[in-house]
Each structure stands twice: as C-alpha cells, then as structure tokens.
C-alpha cells in the first residue's frame, strides 16, 4: 500500500551539527551510534517500553532498590492499568532500569565498568513503561499491555526487550504467533501507527517471540572491534530458529559490554545478573534514535516521516556497512570477522540485517526531505511515503490475513 524509497548517497546537512550535546558514553558517540552532537534529545516525543517488569519511577515508587535518579520515566503502568494503581508493582531491579537508561538516562558523571558515563540516546523523550508480569507463554497479556501503551496519544515507538516462548500450538518463527501478529497489526493500523523495536534472539533460552515480526525492527547486538568502535556483530546473537531460516535481524546496535545503569546508581557489569550484555540494550539504542528522528521530523515539518514504515526504511537504509561508501564510517564485521558483502546493495544479511545503526546518517537521510517518485527531478538523497499499486498488493493481503486470523478486525 505504501511506498517507501530511500536512495543512499553522501549528504551533508549543516544544520544538524549546530549544537553539540556533551555525551561521554561510547555507544552514543562516534564509536557508537553517532547520536551525540546532533542537537537532538527526543524532546516532545512519546516513546514506550514493555517488559516482564518495569523500571522504577523516582518519587513515585518507594521500595528499596526501585529506582535510579538518572532514569525518570514519565509514566509507569502495570499491564493496561495506569500508574496510579501500579505503585511499586512489578518493579524490576535492574534489567528494565538498564533498558530505560539506554533511552533516557541523564547521567553525566558517574563512570561505569567500561569507563564511560551512560547517557541516554533521547534524554528528553517522554518514556512510558509497562510491565506485563505474566508467564512467558502468555502472549495475550503481553499484547494487551503493549496495546495500552500504543493507545497513548502520539506514541511513536515501543521498545520490547523481552522474548516469549511459543504457545497455542505454534512452534515456528513464521510470524503466526499471537504477539508477533499483534506487533504487525498494531504497527500498521491507522490508530496506532507505532514502530516496534524488538530485541533479537540470543543464545540463552529466552523465548523468541516476537522477533519474527514483519512490521517492526528486530535488533541484534554488536560489540567493539579492535579499533574501539561498535561494529563487530556478537556471536551471542541467534539469527534464525526457524527451519525456513527466515532472517530475524533488521539492524545491529551496541549491546555488548556497555555501561548501563542499574538501580541506586549502580551499573550492570560482566559478573552481575543481568550482565551488561544483551540485545535488550541494543534495541533501546534504536528506540532512542527513533525518538530523536521524530523530534527532528517534527521540527522540520516532515509529517510523513513519523509513519512507522518511513522511519523503518530510513533507519535500515542509513545503517553502516562498509567504511567510505556513501558516507558510512565503519566496516561492520560478522562474528567471524568478515566484512559486509562486496555489493553494497545486498539487501539483508542474515547476521547483520541492514547493518549497524548510525543515527547521524539517519538524520541526514531524513533531513534530505520527501520527494514524490513521479516528480520530474528527484535528488540523490530523499524519501517518499506514498501509495503504489504494484508490490503493495502483497503487503495489503498479508496484513489482512494476519489481522483476520487473530480476529483483530
């Protein structure tokens, strides 16, 4: 139904660098996703977080080890219940706090075990966090929880750093599980139009649902290569658990040995439980980046960019693959050390997806502006959110089938 086209090329938008935001955390600096220094902090953008448990909210939750003063969600929920009923309920002690911190931590001085001060990608975004707190196969409760967040006005992106196991007689990663279908349905329906960011699969035996979504972004994790840049895809990612070998990775983002916040000013580390490693922390780098892209789109009047399809296309199109090509500044490496395919237009790699998240390139491509495909002259860099009647038939049919099978229409 919708046509998105992004054309990669070198593009410089001078206004992007008008303000430098101090950020010492490697993952948002030049070694990481390159979001620091863009003058963007997610201000005015509503984002969400769903997990088994939720981060504490300072000055609201009051149990011991509930909160981190640098991580302040705007709203906290229990399933589909508002925060007024959820004080201290389903508060996690570290994982949810760390995930939230990647998005909104305001820390500027406290140094973590990797030697940097963890600061969120979008520290001024309005984060709403909810806990589903149900058995790992209860996908319906997770979907209801997520739906409540998606219904918050202007919700743009929801982070899902959890995985559920198969249930309902479904045991393949083909997008037919309830929660995966919910993600696909909620993303594209006109009420929500939310982009879902899902933590990719790891070697641990956490469940793989909904990494087999179609309309969200599934994120694998990277660690530092020998030059100190996050560009080495971790061996701990699991790329496919389906006999059909359906690709499950859309993007790669920093997730290995990070400085991430725990409660009470603590840090996760290599021997803590959970450790400072995981796709759980890669995903919110993408979520935070979407927040700053939305902020930028709003400021520039790029109304169509807020649609989940446009945002997804821009993020994937701007990912780094090979240094020196089309403005990319790093070679992304497979777990075995090999580079991206010789052909830059190789569509998706099983292990690297579209490549390593690069917020700076994403803002550049977004900022190039929207140009309708039937214009007489189309610049080298730009995008289009529009209607076609060719390949779109496949999309429309697929979404319809998914929604009907779950009774969502």
């Amino acid at each position, binding site marked *: 139904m919708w046509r998105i086209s992004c054309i990669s090329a070198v593009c410089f938008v001078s206004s992007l660098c008008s303000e430098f935001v101090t950020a010492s955390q490697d993952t948002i600096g030049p070694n990481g996703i390159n979001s620091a220094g863009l003058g963007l902090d997610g201000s005015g953008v509503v984002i969400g977080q769903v997990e088994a448990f939720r981060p504490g909210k300072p000055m609201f939750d009051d149990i011991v080890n509930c909160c981190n003063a640098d991580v302040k969600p705007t709203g906290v929920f229990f399933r589909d219940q508002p925060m007024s009923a959820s004080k201290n309920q389903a508060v996690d002690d570290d994982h949810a706090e760390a995930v939230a911190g990647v998005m909104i931590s305001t820390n500027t001085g406290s140094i973590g*075990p990797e030697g940097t001060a963890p600061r969120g990608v979008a520290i001024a975004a309005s984060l709403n966090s909810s806990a589903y707190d149900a058995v790992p196969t209860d996908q319906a409760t997770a979907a209801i929880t997520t739906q409540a967040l998606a219904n918050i006005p202007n919700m743009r992106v929801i982070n899902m750093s959890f995985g559920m196991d198969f249930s309902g007689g479904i045991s393949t990663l083909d997008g037919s599980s309830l929660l995966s279908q919910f993600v696909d349905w909620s993303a594209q329906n006109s009420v929500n139009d939310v982009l879902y960011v899902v933590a990719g699969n790891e070697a641990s035996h956490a469940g793989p649902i909904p990494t087999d979504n179609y309309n969200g972004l599934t994120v694998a994790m990277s660690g530092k290569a020998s030059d100190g840049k996050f560009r080495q895809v971790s061996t701990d990612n699991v790329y496919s658990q389906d006999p059909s070998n359906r690709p499950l990775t859309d993007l790669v983002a920093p997730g290995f040995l990070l400085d991430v916040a725990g409660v009470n000013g603590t840090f996760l580390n*290599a021997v803590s439980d959970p450790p400072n490693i995981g796709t759980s922390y890669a995903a919110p780098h993408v979520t935070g980046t979407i927040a700053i892209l939305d902020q930028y789109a709003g400021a520039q009047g790029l109304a169509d960019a807020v649609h989940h399809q446009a945002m997804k296309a821009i993020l994937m199109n701007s990912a780094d693959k090979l240094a020196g090509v089309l403005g990319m500044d790093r070679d992304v490496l497979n777990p075995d050390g090999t580079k991206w395919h010789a052909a830059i237009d190789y569509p998706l790699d099983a292990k690297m997806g579209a490549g390593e998240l690069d917020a700076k390139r994403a803002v550049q491509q977004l900022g190039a502006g929207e140009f309708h495909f039937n214009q007489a002259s189309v610049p080298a860099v730009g995008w289009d959110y529009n209607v076609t009647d060719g390949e779109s038939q496949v999309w429309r049919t697929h979404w319809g089938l998914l929604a009907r099978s779950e009774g969502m229409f």
Partner: protein
Amino acid sequence: MSTRIISVRGRLSLACMLLIAASGCGGGGTKPATPVRNSSETKVEVESKPAESGPLVTDQESGGPIGDQPPKDDAGAIEIPLGQIWALHMPGTKNIIELDPDGDYNGLTSLPGDERIKRWKNSLLRQISEALTPDVSPDWPREGQQSGPGFVVAGNGIVSLREANAVMFDKKKPRTSFSASTEVTAVFFSYMGGGPLQIMHVTRDGSNIVVAYRFIMPLNKGPVLDFALIPLGRLMPGKYQVEIRQLPMGQEMLDRTYGAYNADERQRSRAKVSGLRFVCHSFSFDVTKENND
C-alpha cells in the same frame, strides 16, 4: 534479577537450618560435610549429625570451611552443603564476591574513577568472566559446539579462586592429580548464555561426586554466566569421577508461574541442549598418596 531468586532446597533447607544452630552448617562454619541417606535427584534427606570424620582444619587464608581428613568410603553419601559453596548468583550459596571484593564494581564507588576501573579490570572474577563470555573468549561454545569439562584445583577459598583464575584466564593447564594431603576444590562453570542456573545439591559417595544443577528460566532476554567453587576437602587416594548432572525444572517454578515451561517438552529439550552447550561437563581427577604438589 531478584525475581529469579527462588528457594529450592525444601527439606534440605530445613534440615540444614537445624544444623546451623547445632553445628554451623550452611553458615560458612567449619563443620564437616553432612552425610545423606538418599542422594536421589528429588529427595535428599539429611541426618542431624555430622559425618564420621577426623578433626577439622581451618583454612588460614580464607577462614572458610575446608575438608576433613578423608572420609571413610563406607560412610555413605556425603552432602556438601550449598552453604559451603562459593558461587555467583546462586541461592543458598556463599557469595563469591566476598572472596574478591574488587569483583563487585558497584562496591568500589568510594574510589576515584581510574582506580575503580583498574581494580575492577584486575579482579579475579572479572577476569574469569572473560573466559566465559562470547566474543572475548575463544572457548565460548558456538552453536553446535559443547562446553569443556569442569576441573579441580588445589586449595580452598581465595586460594582456589586464584587457581581457577590461572586456569580460566591465564590458560594454565588444569591439574588432574593431587596429593591426599591437599585440599581440593571443584570448579563448576557455565558460559554466558546458558544460565541462569543454580546448583541444587552436591554429593559424594566414595569416589563418585555429583554436582546437580538446574536452569531457572529468565523472563527477560539477557545472558548470564555462572561460576562456583565447590570445596571437596582432602580426599583418599583414588580416581574420582565428578558428574555434572542437569535436573529438570521443579515444582517451585510452577509455583512461581513458570508452569508453562515445565510442562513444555520443547522447553525441556532446549534446556537440555543448553546444558550440553554451555555448562561444564563431567570430569575426573586422581588423588595419590605421594606429595605431587
């Protein structure tokens, strides 16, 4: 995460609690290993008296419990209480961070930043974590590969931690032969990605030692590594087999809303595969009369 912490010892816990009052069991005391009559996987009954054994010896460096004179082979199965095991993140065990305080990064907050990082980077536990972590450890088992065996080191407490570090971080070849006059400690580990798990019980019946563990299913994504030092004390000469045995997830999981996992054969199968891949395997070692230290 605290939500993973589940009391699992059941009858053993109760018995051990009684022994704490009577003999220091489970509290880091110096009493000998506790005998059991039945060492089956699901029921471990603990007698209310200590094993027949020789006088106690205290590790001068760690102050922790160490082995006794070699127990008689006919003494029946010996339970090594969880309370004598040093481990990361395992309910009922002693927190191994106490042996290596620098391994607690968050405990170093009073230090200047550079010193804090330096102490953390040099900590024995952090270095051991490198040996168990994907990407930084060449030994981390990739898909289709399996973990290597556990091993035994000489000593107890901090001495055994240093020895384990030498094997895992410095790649020193583990010893397979020890003198009967030497206290030994079994090293149990699970590569990051396998856990979280917990040791349920450790028993020794003559020369057969069983380390029984089970996985605790995580709700969130997140790899965890596990590591434990199991003091075996001084042993009689002979060849010892250490069996690393995976137990099924138990009733406690059902009670903690993990029931669907337990009923799911596929999940069980995955846990079994995960155990083979990430958790150290069974191994053997020799104890000789000669002083080969």
